[in-house]
């Protein structure tokens, strides 16, 4: 479970985000990306001295300004359970896939006809 996958799994969960400058943002995660850019909704912003508070309906935070995120303690367990469930589901699915694969083999042979033009392309490449 990589840190950013955990963040992805924390969507719609409450969290506290502290920026490098000490400001903190309390809110629910709406979305995030691989740069750790995030959007929060129903946000309480606190300045670095923790003596002024602002309420924002929604805010966007650039990932590079973040120091850390504090996320719900049970999230790791929740995610682990979800992964297990997905794995179980996959196992069931894979059995079907194996069945398909058997049936799929002739299709791969049929693709041999498509291999013709591919080979000629390779030949051209070598010539050039």
């Amino acid at each position, binding site marked *: *479970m*990589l*840190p*950013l996958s*955990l*963040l992805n799994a924390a969507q719609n969960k409450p969290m506290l985000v502290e*920026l*490098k*400058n*000490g400001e903190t943002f309390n809110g629910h995660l709406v979305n995030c990306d691989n740069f*750790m850019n995030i959007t929060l909704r129903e946000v309480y912003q606190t300045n670095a001295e923790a003596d002024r508070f602002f309420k924002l309906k929604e805010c966007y935070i650039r*990932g*590079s*300004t*973040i*120091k*850390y*995120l*504090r*996320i*719900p*303690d049970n*999230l*790791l367990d929740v995610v682990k359970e979800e992964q297990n469930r997905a794995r179980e589901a996959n196992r069931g699915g894979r059995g079907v896939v194996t069945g398909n694969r058997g049936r799929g083999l002739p299709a791969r042979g049929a693709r041999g006809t498509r291999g013709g033009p591919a080979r000629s392309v390779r030949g051209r490449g070598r010539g050039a």
Partner: protein
Amino acid sequence: MDSLIPFTTSGALMDCVDRKMLVILRDGRKLHGVLRSYDQFANLVLEDTVERIYHGNAFAESWYGLYLIRGENVVLIGEIDLDQEDDVPLKQVDYNVLEPYHKEDVEDKKHREEAKSQVLFEEKGFSKEGGEGDGY
């Protein structure tokens, strides 16, 4: 560690997963927690995190829970020896008691560092910290 694993962030931290670690951040915070995950940027997931503050021969803890730390802010990560961690010759006190002293220490250190960087910049030809690209 196995010499087959190259010395990279991913290689060096592999043995630390699920161990109790000390993490020091650039802002001076010292966090203790169980390392659950990390990536190539040293972004860390710490479980059961506590922050420790020190003053004189006393320390105090404050419980924070699950942390996702952005790698940039990490200064060091070190494993805590569970056999030895209770042998430290410090006594634990209540966080609220120690916090004002700790805040004072932090403030003092800030002033000292400012004075130092002033001298380094004006007399010794060093550049200033907090230049372009430094979020701090």
